[in-house]
């Protein structure tokens, strides 16, 4: 397969970026998107054309949340419930133009080319996305009975890999789905309910401070989340916030 790639190139955080166009051919349909970029980089290096294109990646199994590219108007490309590393070239047509951009959000500044600094998410977690009790030894899994449906909802929320696709997809660059998922997986379980009010207040305050936008219920985040995390987690975050305004640790 043959493609025309339009890739965002930016020397560093302060430099002015631009799109560079590269032609690439002999790409197999079963090749993953990141492998295709590897092939491009090999050619750029071997033919001494330019510096290789920088992009984030790690596990390449859809688990770590490191990869994140905005491809032809969609975070993680043209498929549902996948990360960029799970995208394959068979999803494109031969001869396609592919526009590759970094996540665009004020709290996610570009470090170089397609790599963005997502430490804003870490800062939100540091603000309150944890349980501060000293647990001692690991308790038996069934010591505290938890209803199955709640355990399932908590597990669904906990599957967030923090890739930032929700922010990248949202027209407001809002992190509400991320914060909603992080608040939910703790608020749904008994151990997390004790600090629920304090947690939600701190995390939302940090989210606002970092410059994320607010949710206007477009649900692009839900559509693009590689782990298919639902908008109901945003609703739960709002519910938790209202509870916190009245100083209550709300039980879900």
């Amino acid at each position, binding site marked *: 397969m043959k493609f025309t790639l339009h890739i965002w190139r930016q020397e560093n955080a302060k430099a002015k970026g631009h799109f560079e166009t590269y032609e690439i051919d002999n790409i197999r349909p079963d090749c993953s998107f990141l492998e295709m970029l590897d092939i491009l980089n090999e050619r750029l290096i071997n033919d001494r054309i330019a510096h290789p294109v920088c992009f984030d990646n790690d596990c390449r199994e859809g688990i770590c949340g490191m990869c994140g590219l905005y491809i032809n*108007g969609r975070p993680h490309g043209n498929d549902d419930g996948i990360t960029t590393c799970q995208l394959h070239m068979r999803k494109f047509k031969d001869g396609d133009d592919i526009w590759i951009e970094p996540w665009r959000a004020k709290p996610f500044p570009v470090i170089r080319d397609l790599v963005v600094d997502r430490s804003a998410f870490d800062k939100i977690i540091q603000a309150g996305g944890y349980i501060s009790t000293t647990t001692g030894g690991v308790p038996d899994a069934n010591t505290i009975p938890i209803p199955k449906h709640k355990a399932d909802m908590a597990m669904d929320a906990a599957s967030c890999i923090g890739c930032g696709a929700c922010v990248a997809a949202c027209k407001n660059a809002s992190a509400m789905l991320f914060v909603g998922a992080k608040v939910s997986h703790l608020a749904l379980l008994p151990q997390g309910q004790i600090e629920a009010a304090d947690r939600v207040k701190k995390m939302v305050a940090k989210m606002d401070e970092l410059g994320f936008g607010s949710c*206007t219920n477009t649900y692009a985040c839900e559509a693009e989340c590689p782990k298919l995390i639902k908008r109901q987690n945003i609703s*739960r975050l709002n519910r938790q916030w*209202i509870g916190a305004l009245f100083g209550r640790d709300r039980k879900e």
Partner: protein
Amino acid sequence: MNIPKIHSISKKILVGALGAFLSFFLLFHASANLLILRHDDGEWYNAFCHFMGTYSIIKVFEIGLLAALLLHAILAIWLAVINKMARPVSYKKPTRSKTHTGSKLQVWTGILIFACLILHFTDFYFVKSGWVKGKYMTKAEKVVALNATQPDAANYAEQHGKYSAKGNWLTNFDKEDKAFLEAAGLEVEPDFYHQAREKFKILHIVISYLVFFTVVWFHLRHGFAAVFQTFGLYNYKYSRAIEILGQIYTWGVCLMFTIVVIGVYFGL
């Protein structure tokens, strides 16, 4: 002095709460407008308008309503500006994510509705104060009472006006008549029934109304479910019910308004 910071979710909750309040008023307004369809020469509709225009508690409610509308608009625009700032560099390729169209249009439909409401208020308040041409009426019993002290003014009212609503009101006065009758000490108020019926016979006004309520439909369609989401009431159990209720409410309110306009135009 430290001004307490209003967090993004609190702003959203406030926008949603004000929106919900305005939506309920819209349902009330739509229900009242159905009275225009009654062929009673404005007896019920004008009685309703008279009550709304004179009852003191309603006056307080009116101020609250206008304040809610302004605050709803200001907060929504404030949020939109902050949201715009959250992405200083836009994407080259426009989004292809599956999203709710209503949300993307919400600010724009809101601005359009706000602009149209200003025109509507101009109609309502300016006609009331006599700054804009309109139809006016006065209570027939007051004219009879006036006959004892100022027979000329009473005669003027009877000659220029015509009895309506089972003879309870003398209507069909214009701006000049209003000034004259008020100088004679009569209470004159707008005849919204005949004014509306006259306006809804004009094609371009009917079309403008239909366009306006299409915009309102988009705004309400998104807003209804969004309020539940913002209040944290949108959960796995009730999400479908909220969507259906939203459809019923949105279609219901918009149809109630438009049916009056279309009905009057076609002679109903």
